């Protein structure tokens, strides 16, 4: 992290805070900044971006995994304890808060999803609360936990990011999970034939009588291209929307934090800026979790929706 024993430059500070704690299989002969060489192929923690690039697919971001799974366990623990204590009287305290959240998600699901499923509402609740909790880590001041981590690890160049949703792996993973759920429910509701019919016969109806039938394969191909692009755009946009918002927000936190090294006056000004941006970021955090949840519910509703059951289509 330090160039030659001195304090790190602004660029190094920013890049250090944007790098994940990566563990992977490093092939022998990889140079790190032209200095150290990896002797044998082994599973190590990466020390610089060149090593991370060399690890390729075998790299795993341990900090993202720890924080996302850890926050998931916290979410489950809190909700489980409150579910155990639920009663029919007027709720108070933590129970009240949990009931507000569950009721909110329930109303949102009822607004957009008109079918019967025991799976969609818990899915929506999990997505909303889990994404909100992961985003909430962004409000923690930039250096606090990473600095504690460097003290625990004993290595001043230790990479540790605390916001899992700034890692595109996490957000795209969630997006593609929703995508596979969409396809699974579509196939279950409409059958495999129905699912393929939906992909090939919308939006243009291929002619089935007369001379124009020669055009049918062309129209089916056009339909397929349009529908597949729409289908693939959903998980990619879900994941990248959340990632882009959180990455840009964290970037601005880090940029304001670089002002802290520039003297007392600028440091105090930076403190005020941090508070202002954090207040604005609260609404972004909640909104992004809400939008992820609503889009998941809408995609599930589209997976359940059967076009032939619409009354007014010919």
């Amino acid at each position: 992290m330090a160039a030659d024993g001195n304090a790190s430059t602004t660029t190094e500070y920013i890049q250090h805070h944007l790098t994940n704690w990566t563990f992977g299989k490093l092939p022998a002969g990889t140079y790190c900044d032209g200095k150290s060489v990896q002797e044998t192929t082994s599973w190590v923690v990466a020390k610089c971006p060149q090593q991370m690039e060399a690890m390729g697919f075998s790299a795993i971001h341990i900090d993202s995994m720890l924080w996302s799974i850890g926050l998931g366990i916290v979410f489950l623990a809190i909700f489980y304890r409150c579910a155990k204590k639920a009663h029919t009287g007027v709720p108070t305290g933590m129970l009240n808060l949990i009931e507000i959240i569950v009721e909110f998600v329930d109303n949102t699901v009822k607004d957009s999803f008109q079918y019967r499923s025991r799976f969609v509402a818990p899915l929506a609740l999990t997505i909303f609360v889990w994404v909100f909790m992961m985003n909430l880590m962004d409000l923690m001041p930039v250096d606090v936990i990473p600095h504690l981590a460097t003290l625990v690890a004993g290595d001043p160049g230790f990479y540790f990011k605390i916001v899992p949703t700034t890692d595109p792996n996490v957000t795209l993973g969630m997006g593609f999970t929703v995508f596979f759920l969409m396809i699974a429910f579509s196939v279950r509701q409409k059958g495999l034939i129905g699912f393929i019919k939906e992909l090939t016969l919308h939006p243009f109806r291929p002619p089935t009588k007369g001379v124009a039938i020669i055009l049918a394969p062309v129209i089916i191909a056009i339909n397929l291209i349009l529908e597949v692009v729409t289908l693939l755009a959903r998980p990619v946009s879900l994941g990248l929307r959340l990632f882009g918002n959180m990455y840009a927000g964290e970037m601005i936190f880090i940029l304001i934090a670089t002002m802290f090294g520039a003297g007392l006056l600028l440091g105090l000004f930076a403190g005020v800026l941090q508070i202002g941006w954090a207040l604005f970021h609260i609404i972004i955090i909640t909104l992004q979790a809400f939008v992820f949840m609503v889009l998941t519910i809408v995609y599930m509703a589209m997976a359940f929706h059967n076009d032939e059951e619409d009354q007014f289509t010919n």
Partner: protein
Amino acid sequence: MGLALIAVALLIGLGALGTAIGFAILGGKLLEGSARQPELAPMLQVKMFIVAGLLDAVPMVGVGIAMYILFVTVPGLA
């Protein structure tokens, strides 16, 4: 490195342009709809936030990529 900086500027600038126009139209429609039927105003506001989230998506992806280019790739090129 100069071209990378121009790329960052285009990414953020054009994204901001589209988002600004989109939000302006969206907000205008919300105000119009609330003025016609004030009892629907809360529901319209919720739906506005949903559409705002969708509207923000692509420019935000652009901003995320632009930040990455600006702070991780450009120092590598310089």
